[in-house]
């Protein structure tokens, strides 16, 4: 192979760094950075889950004295709720599936040695880390963590301590943390897009990229556009809070018997800017999960993905429409009812590409030979959850129906199933699937199965009843139900959900045990334990510092060539030279 010799002769000096700090702390290796992101998200998810544990304890038994915590006050509840939402959305759902798995596997899957800008990549992680540290610091300042929710609606979030506990220093740290996070995300997404566009190896056409790469790529575009807007909004909010400007704060407010010295600002302006970011953020959380699930489903169905191009266009359509539907969060906000109609119809049309995805996932399973390993269980669970959570969105997308359901627990159930749990199932599928590649050892399969069944049944037991109390009109963000009469009847449902939550949370300990156990004791695996086709399964487990040791693979076909008739095995890896008639060359024929 003359061309390979040519490539080898020009191998970029990409020596592995020596010394612990350069190798594991301030590393520029995309794989180490990916693992750093995943570890950060793992810490964050347990912090966030612990906060939800406290909230569920309080909701089920409002008068319970929680050990080391005491009786929970309403402001403590709201602080837990705000931090739970913020930590989960930013430091888990945005961090793990995109920055974590994406960093580790995007370069390998397109046959690159590293990200386009390794130093920027490192900075991006450490900005995220700093942002997380600042966010956690909000717990420890006077007044405690902010109580304005993860959406930080103005004026509650803009007025300072006078509007309530946690809205002083805590809220300031919140805004600063989010601004740092924006910077980190912009650096990260710029890196992802450039890498995908410029560093694909020979033959890796756009329409030969694994669906994971497509998902990370499109997610990065959403991040590049969305976080820029959130940063602008955050700067204006900081100025309103500390420099006396009135971008968002209107005049004539009386808060705690004090006349607020601002005038003319528009609270709706904050909502528009926030949700212009906030709605794409939902897709930032779920698209990588969709990519991972498509990848895993095809691999374990031993069958090409059904309608590869349709899947790609569905991702693009979801992302594009997703940039234009932020107003459906604001049907009851006082926004023009005419624009609500436009936002509603656009939102309903997102149902179409989402339905394509579901249809194609089931189409992939049709006529398959399904292997039920833990990654596949979570991928199948994702499909079920995606259907459930997507359909409840059809209710909320209609302003007419949203009149009743807006800001009730129905909404909480909807976004937890689709954006929270489904996205986390995508991460679990990714973890069980790629752990062998990342660490050279398989995860314990029995524990994995147990973890899946407890979690799958558990999350449905938590979140299905949550729809029902929403139907009964239970408003969200209520620390307790004592003041409103019609809520008393719903208390047993709260207790049921809390118990389901405790079981589900306990099941996550199994996951961590499995992670730790497998790191040291897991069965050693070879290069390609799942008999998969994409490039990450052509390098050693774990991959060396420069992935391909300078011998970049060439790609000859689409990513999901399973069960090819006449092929010697039931899978044909992307990098194998033409071995059978051209009509089987790939998805792009």
């Amino acid at each position, binding site marked *: 192979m003359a061309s390979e010799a040519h490539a080898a002769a020009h191998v970029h000096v990409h020596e592995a760094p020596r010394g612990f700090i350069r190798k594991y702390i301030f590393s520029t290796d995309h794989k180490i950075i990916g693992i750093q992101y995943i570890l950060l998200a793992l810490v964050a998810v347990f912090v966030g889950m612990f906060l939800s544990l406290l909230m569920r304890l309080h909701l089920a038994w409002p008068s319970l004295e929680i050990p080391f915590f005491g009786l929970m006050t309403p402001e403590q509840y709201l602080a837990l709720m705000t931090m739970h939402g913020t930590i989960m959305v930013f430091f888990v759902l945005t961090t793990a599936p995109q920055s974590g798995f994406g960093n580790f596997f995007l370069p390998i899957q397109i046959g690159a040695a590293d990200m386009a800008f390794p130093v920027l990549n490192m900075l991006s992680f450490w900005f995220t880390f700093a942002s997380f540290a600042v966010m956690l610091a909000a717990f420890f300042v006077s007044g405690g963590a902010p109580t304005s929710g993860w959406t930080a609606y103005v004026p509650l979030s803009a007025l300072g301590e006078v509007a309530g506990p946690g809205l002083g220093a805590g809220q300031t740290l919140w805004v600063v943390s989010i601004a740092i996070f924006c910077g980190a995300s912009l650096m990260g997404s710029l890196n992802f897009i450039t890498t995908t566009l410029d560093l694909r190896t020979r033959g890796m056409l756009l329409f030969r990229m694994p669906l994971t790469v497509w998902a990370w790529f499109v997610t990065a575009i959403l991040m590049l556009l969305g976080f820029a807007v959130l940063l602008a909004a955050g700067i204006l909010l900081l100025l309103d809070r500390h420099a006396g400007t009135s971008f968002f704060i209107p005049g004539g407010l009386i808060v705690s018997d004090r006349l607020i010295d601002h005038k003319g600002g528009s609270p709706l302006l904050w909502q528009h*800017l926030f949700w212009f970011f906030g709605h794409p953020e939902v897709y930032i959380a779920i698209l990588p999960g969709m990519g991972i699930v498509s990848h895993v489903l095809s691999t374990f169905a031993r069958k090409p993905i059904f309608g590869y191009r349709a899947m790609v266009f569905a991702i693009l359509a979801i992302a594009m429409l997703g940039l234009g539907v932020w107003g459906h969060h604001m049907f009851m906000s006082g926004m023009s009812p005419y624009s609500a109609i436009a936002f509603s119809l656009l939102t309903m049309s997102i149902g179409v590409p989402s339905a394509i995805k579901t249809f194609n996932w089931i189409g992939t399973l049709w006529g398959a030979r399904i292997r039920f390993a833990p990654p596949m269980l979570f991928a199948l669970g994702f499909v079920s959850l995606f259907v459930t959570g997507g359909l409840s969105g059809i209710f909320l997308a209609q302003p007419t129906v949203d009149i009743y359901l807006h800001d009730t627990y129905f909404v909480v159930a909807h976004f937890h199933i689709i954006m929270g749990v489904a996205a986390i199932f995508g991460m679990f599928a990714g973890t069980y699937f790629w752990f062998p590649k990342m660490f050279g050892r398989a995860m314990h399969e029995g524990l994995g199965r147990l973890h899946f069944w407890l979690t799958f049944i558990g999350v449905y037991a938590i979140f299905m009843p949550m729809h029902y109390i929403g139907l009964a009109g239970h408003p969200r963000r209520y620390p307790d139900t004592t003041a409103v009469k019609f809520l008393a009847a719903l208390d047993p449902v709260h207790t049921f959900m809390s118990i389901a939550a405790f079981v589900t949370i306990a099941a996550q300990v199994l996951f961590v045990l499995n992670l730790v156990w497998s790191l040291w004791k897991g069965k050693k695996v070879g290069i390609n334990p799942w008999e998969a086709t994409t490039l990450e399964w052509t390098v050693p487990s774990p991959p060396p510092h420069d992935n391909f040791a300078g011998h970049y693979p060439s790609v000859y076909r689409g990513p999901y060539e399973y069960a090819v008739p006449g092929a010697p095995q039931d899978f044909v890896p992307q990098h194998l030279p033409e071995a059978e008639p051209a009509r089987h060359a790939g998805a792009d024929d």
Partner: protein
Amino acid sequence: MAGKTAVEELELIDAGRPPRDSGGAGDFGGRRPTPAVPQVYVTGIWLALASILMFFMALTSALIVRRGLSTDWVPFDLPPLLWWNTAALLASSLTLETAHRALAAGRPLAYHRWWNVTTALGVLFLAGQWMAWAQLRAAGVYLATNPSSSFFYVLTGVHGLHLLGGIVALLYVATRRRRAAPWPVERTAVTATSIYWHFLSGLWVFLLLLLWWGR
């Protein structure tokens, strides 16, 4: 809100680059999948511009909404100094282009000279902006005086910060040149810096018109 769709962004990125992957398997397109590929800096800068544009569009739409919704918008006269600053910045784009052409024509001395003139004009612009701020402060127009002044300080401030980044990039390229960096890398750095600098000039003209309209 104004902005580009994802596909438009992609087209933006794909415009003006050599055809790639056209031959299917086997065509390298002159690129290797390592971070040492110079093309990534040009792609990266275009993406950064998309993001910066989005950031400024968010602020612009905030200005339009804030101005349209309220009755408390009090116009103030922009300091005439701004027009001189604008002239300096536009001139810097011209000198940068001259430098770029000198480089392409293989006249390194002219390239160095015009590059330095560009940097000086950039510094002059920033100093002028600072003086404009000082004039406004002296006239009693502060950040929180009125939404019109708030937006003036915010827009000029964040634009100035971006321009400061541009000056750092200009200086960085100047130092690299002394270290006799390899030819393609220097060329890429020059191209990337130029794209960024021209963008900031254009952005400033847009912001100036916006501020003039919303005085």
